[in-house]
């Protein structure tokens, strides 16, 4: 566990925060309204959620929508930049891979972008 949300009682912005819940590949993850998907994923202890063509893990790099490392599928919409999209209660996030699937890999979950 390394990245995290500043605890409410320590947060000098004096924020409130309405809780929300999304699922990531079917697993529930909790966050607060206003978080981006990237912020929520990081704060829930994930550091990566996508794979480069070699299968290497990727998460947030630029944080502002430039590098496209953080792409996820949201409610069936592929190629959403997690660092730019605000989380909505009930969002179903699917992580993806640009890796070429090997025969044993099962169904292709790749986003297919840029191919």
């Amino acid at each position, binding site marked *: 566990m*390394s*990245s*995290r*949300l*500043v*605890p409410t009682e*320590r*947060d*000098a*912005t*004096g*924020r*409130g*925060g*309405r809780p929300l819940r999304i699922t990531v590949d079917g697993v529930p993850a909790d966050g*607060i*309204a*206003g*978080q*981006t998907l*990237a*912020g929520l994923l*990081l*704060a829930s202890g994930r*550091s*990566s959620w996508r794979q*480069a*063509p*070699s299968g*290497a*893990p*990727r*998460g*947030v*790099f*630029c*944080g*502002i*929508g*430039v*590098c*496209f*490392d953080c*792409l996820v599928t949201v409610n069936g*919409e592929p*190629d*959403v*930049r997690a*660092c*730019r*999209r*605000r989380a*909505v209660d009930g969002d179903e996030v699917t992580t993806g891979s640009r890796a070429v699937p090997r025969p044993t890999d099962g169904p292709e979950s790749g986003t297919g*972008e*840029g191919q």
Partner: protein
Amino acid sequence: MPAARRVAVVGAGPAGLSAAQAALAAGARVTVIDAAEEPGGQYHRTVPAAYAPRRPGHLQHGWRAFEHRRRRVLAHPRCTWLPQTSVWALERPRPGQEGPPRLHLLCSGPADGAGRPRRTLDVDALVLAVGAHDRVLPFPGWELPGVCTAGAAQALAKGERVAVGQRVVVAGSGPFLLPVAASLLDAGSQVREVLEANTAATTARGWGRRPWELAAQAGKAAELAAHAAALARHRVPYRTGRAVVEARGDGRVEEVVTARLRADWSVLEGTRRTVAVDAVCVSHGFSPQLELPLAAGCALGERAEPGSDTAGTRASGPSGSRGAPDAFVRVDERQRTSVPGVFAAGEITGIAGAAAARAEGAVAGWSAATGGSAPRDPGTRRALRALRRSRDQGRAFAGRLARAHPIGAAWPGWLRPQTVVCRCEETDYGSLCAAFATEAGAAPRVAKLNTRAGLGPCQGRICGPTVAELRRRLAGDAPDRPAEGLPAADPHRRPLAQPIRLGELAAPSAPLTGPGHRPEEESSS
């Protein structure tokens, strides 16, 4: 009375917001467009309204003035504010037609959402104020999760109160490392050290020459002093002449290797140290977002020193180490670009920080609203002179910044053949060297197709400047041979400035309607 001029401002950061304010003051009807939900850009990034913050100005410098400007602009009866709206393309006028390009917008929808309505907007003048993003030089392991840009750490800490790590090293070059370290400390991270790659001698020479220029940027100096004090309070070492030269870890960063550097950024052997981290935040400077300026046809160039008659763009580093002129949008005294009716302001014309961006924005907004004609009443003339003066001070500051924090020529010494250079396609340094070594491969377009560098989802936004620099060094200035009559490759040229979905592209587009832009006025040109 002549009809008010219609001005579109793209980007609501310090430059764009101030351009909008000046254009409104000069009597124009203004449409302000930003992909974000709130104005402020990178500098005034705040927590979202949904966080219900009691102190939204926490971590913000110049917050009161910004709040005031934001309210004045957004509430103005001649202003139309389009949040969550991306300009995805600019369409140049057909030959023989006048005026700035037509804007193509994807309106009011969640980022990368499907089915956002497509709109077009025609105006008399266009102000581009789209800002910059971090430039990060590659090093072994920089693709590991947990390695991110300093801007990402800043955006997450300031914008949503997420600390990217518990034990963090902040490294690279430039004064931006200080606010990032301060935000991380505020968010509860332990900042193990802040590493400025340039030696103390280089930064002192850059900042120390012509100290009177610094006095004009007193606000900036005070801001940096506050960050330095935060570092001191937390006993965070700030080291010069040291860099992160490698990141290591299994599936994510677990440690970084740092090393002492010479002035040219070559590694002093025997000085390597390992530091345990769970995040490392890196920035070696900023790259301007040039998609829209290039789509409009704006000429680029190096920034000249203020006072020279080709004011605009920036002074390159002293060592000439950047390989080639940094590309920024070239503007004149009035912030006009080379394209009639198109103005530019802020970091796309040179990296100088928020205060300079504001001053440039004000000049650009005024020029856009008046068509560049000199004001008649003495009060306005005086105000405009003061704005230009503060803009020139900002440019002087930019020159000094570039001299104090150049990129050292020997940085590729950090790379190994297997080091990833293009993050998207995972093209490594070895393949690029091999491609550039052959004469045919030296043409950018050919090398790009062979190595795939720059062909991934980010379209070369991250690796473009690096690949171009490596190519210049390894292949010399081999001319590009346009393939099949295509224009020469340009690392910043992209047909789409922002992603758009096929469904959105297929849906019909309509002229924008609204208080500032009635359709009957749109179509009458």
